[in-house]
């Protein structure tokens, strides 16, 4: 089924069409399950004015953090931005805008964006700075705030395995935000550890059906660990 072959063989092809001032949704939690090669390619092509939607912004020198080095990022939509000195500096210097969003609300905004739900109510953030300026409505006597969904021009996703139809599975907790990100891009690009033949993935065990995916590229991953803690150190 040639019409459904999503595999591309160069990072140029993987991110073709990405341009300045676009919104990019990125999967990953900290440095776990991030599309390393796609991030590197964004740095390489040098697009600027990006809005990045990602739970975190990597660390200094790795992950999405490298996009800060050349000031490619105009705005971050994230739940947690700690552990990144350059980030903090650009934020304090007013060079970087940040929309802090609760982690569950962020995950749901992406799921909703992919699912054609333009907005939903949540109790999360009511009465806090997150709720300021947002519509409030009571259900069963409890107040909730209205949160709008997010769709990116591009979504960049890291999966474990994919077939050429774009069906993906994720490995362990490297799943995190990746399945929602995959649904929430006008163009969704998945970087994978392994490309398998259609049929190798059990149909009812596929995390992301290929319909959400536009391009698949095989990457190589450093998989840097942010906090290596072992039983020995603990004991």
């Amino acid at each position, binding site marked *: 089924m040639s019409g459904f072959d999503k595999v591309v063989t160069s990072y140029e092809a993987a991110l073709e069409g990405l341009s300045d001032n676009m919104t990019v949704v990125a999967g990953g*939690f*900290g*440095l*776990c*399950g991030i599309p390393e090669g796609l991030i590197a390619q964004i740095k390489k092509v040098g697009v600027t004015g990006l809005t990045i939607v990602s*739970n975190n912004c990597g660390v200094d020198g790795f992950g999405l953090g490298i996009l800060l080095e050349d000031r490619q990022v105009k705005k971050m939509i*994230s*739940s*947690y*931005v*700690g552990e990144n000195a350059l980030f*903090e500096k650009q*934020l304090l210097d007013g060079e970087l805008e*940040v929309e*802090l969003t*609760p*982690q*569950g*609300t*962020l*995950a*749901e905004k*992406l*799921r909703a964006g992919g699912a054609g739900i333009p907005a939903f109510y*949540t*109790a*999360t*953030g*009511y*009465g*806090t*700075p*997150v709720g300021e300026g947002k519509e409030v409505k009571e259900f069963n006597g409890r107040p909730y705030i209205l949160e709008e969904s997010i769709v990116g021009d591009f979504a960049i996703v890291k999966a*474990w395995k994919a077939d050429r139809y774009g069906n993906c599975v994720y*490995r*362990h*907790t*490297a*799943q*995190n*935000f*990746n*399945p*929602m990100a995959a649904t929430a891009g006008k163009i969704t690009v998945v970087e994978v550890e392994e490309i398998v033949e259609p049929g190798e993935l059990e149909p009812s065990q596929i*995390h992301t059906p290929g319909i959400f995916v536009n391009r698949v590229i095989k990457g190589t991953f450093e*998989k*840097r*660990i*942010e*906090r*290596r*803690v*072992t*039983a*020995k*150190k*603990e004991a």
Partner: protein
Amino acid sequence: MALTRDQIAMRVAQEFQDGSYVNLGIGIPTLAANYVPEGIEVMLQSENGLLGMGRYPDEDEVDADMINAGKETVTAITGASIFSSADSFAMIRGGHVDFTVLGAFEVDVNGNIASWMIPGKLIKGMGGAMDLVAGAKNIIVTMTHADKHGNSKLLGECTLPLTGVNCITRIITDLAVLEVADGAFHLTERAPGVSVDEIREKTAGKLIAADDVPEMQF
């Protein structure tokens, strides 16, 4: 005498009921996993997408794809499940997690909590804390009763940006166990050797205490 961090964690762990699903924040809350009482089983939920979080890995078990919400390498217990962040917060927001234990900068008599931001000083983001306080069935706040300058963290009204409103019902500090209800802190237990007067002195918000508040039992 004020409790150590581990003693606070021990007291927290006494709250858990058998068969509870528990989400533990970073710091003292995480320590509570070490002190779950005999005969009680809890299952730990890590909000990055893991139900049934296990111990830290041995050197040869370390896997970059297996981390907890604190981004530490971790293992999964037998019978664990792993899922997306959306599904994880469906559990949390939907009220399926029985206990969430988290730290705070301030708590007030109306059950408000501030834990994620100190304007001009610290903006790391709220992570999952706002969802956890909005969604968990039982929330336990653990913190020192006063900051290192001796200022009370149990206030009439929080001064820092809030994490959640009207959501905190139980606080376990180095000095006391308190319930939050009807616009006051209700002292239910004191740390061994700590007087009601000392607790009263270090509690800025309205405190209601009987004359014979029992000591914590370990």
